[in-house]
């Protein structure tokens, strides 16, 4: 290859043969519904049971002593590959010492439309917080 020539010429022969290969994308298109969204954010969970490359949510423990935290999501055909993909995708720089992968459809989440009523109980209950008690101000170790 000439040092200043364009070395980006596409390879030809091998790709011509593989053009015959069936497109997985075409079959996968069946598997992922457009309505589906990711995991805890999902709009319609569990729509598809047997999805070949289904959605997984990834949780990473960044170091010992800390909890696993949601890092993102990915597609994989099974748990073993989901774990490998999660390692490659979310821990390329030692971001974790442990990974959980969970099928997105296995996650139940609260309904965003009922935010108010679902979470209203703590409201008006300031006495559950230490800051509610002001008379002890200035008293040491309290």
């Amino acid at each position: 290859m000439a040092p200043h020539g364009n070395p980006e010429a596409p390879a030809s022969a091998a790709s011509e043969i593989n053009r015959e290969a069936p497109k997985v994308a075409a079959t996968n298109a069946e598997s992922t519904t457009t309505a589906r969204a990711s995991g805890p954010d999902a709009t319609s969970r569990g729509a598809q049971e047997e999805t070949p490359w289904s959605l997984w949510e990834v949780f990473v423990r960044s170091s010992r002593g800390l909890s696993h935290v949601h890092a993102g999501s990915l597609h994989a055909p099974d748990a073993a590959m989901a774990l490998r993909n999660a390692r490659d995708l979310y821990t390329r720089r030692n971001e974790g010492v442990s990974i959980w992968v969970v099928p997105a459809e296995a996650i139940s989440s609260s309904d965003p439309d009922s935010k108010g009523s679902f979470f209203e109980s703590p409201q008006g209950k300031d006495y559950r917080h230490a800051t509610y008690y002001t008379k002890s101000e200035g008293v040491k170790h309290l």
Partner: protein
Amino acid sequence: MASQNLQSVPAELSPEEQEREAAGQAYFDRIISEDSRIEPRDWMPAAYRKTLLRQISQHAHSEIIGMQPEANWITRAPSLKRKSILMAKVQDEAGHGLYLYSAAETLGQSRDQMMEDLIAGKARYSSIFNYPTISWADMGAIGWLVDGAAICNQVPLCRASYGPYGRAMVRICKEESFHQRQGFEILLELSNGTPAQKQMAQDAVNRWYAPSLMMFGPPDDDSPNSEQSMAWNIKRFSNDELRSRFVGMMVEQVRVLGLTLPDKDIRFNEETKKWEHGPLDWNEFKEVLAGRGPCNSQRVERRREAHENGAWVREAAVAYARKQAQKENAA
């Protein structure tokens, strides 16, 4: 277009549905005005969803296509160290694409559909990746200028109003800074090398300078979607504002490199306190975006080849997963 869709409620909705739409809009408006974040299951205007899908999927495609100009030099990297660095960087681009596809999926678009659109040539991606990488110095110029411009663009996107997009951008920005630094180092070493090497570095900077400035998008007075995107807190700064900032940073850094920027009109405007640059060829930008750049067809063709050549791997993985599941069931 977006602002019109924003407020309109389709007439065929029942009164009950209209009420729900209005309540959703009010909730959405409040979240935006509080500069809080919209999450996937929240009600959002159709135009907001559409704008985000367009932007995030284009961004994802850019990362995926962006692997090619650099992957092109992996086998020709001048040392094992440079080769390892380049591979790590290209792997990062793949990762960035995947983070962004995940974010786009939360808006209701399937990943397969996005991939189909890309390899069918229907999807857009950043015009910058349609330029060829003809010398090793291009790896330096891409890191320094292209990734530099990308960082300028992306840091404010970490605060984009759509939660999954912002979170993907935080992750991406953390990883992107190594990209720019390694590019700077490549150029610095070439610049301090033989006269021929220095010339190679200067040539790369000359070729990548204008395309990298155009990465910020058309001038503000010719950027139809910008205003609405800023109103929705997706964009935080205008194209020209970010471009001007970027020019200012490059002016400083190019001195350290001992090279020059191919722009005699660069100046700091004392009145506006902004950096100004020479005219850019926006016709070229539009041509490349429309698919008539130097490498457009090659990039999409490569992507399609890679996708199709990988089909058997995806199928084998599914077959293996099924078999394992059957074994477990039988046991």
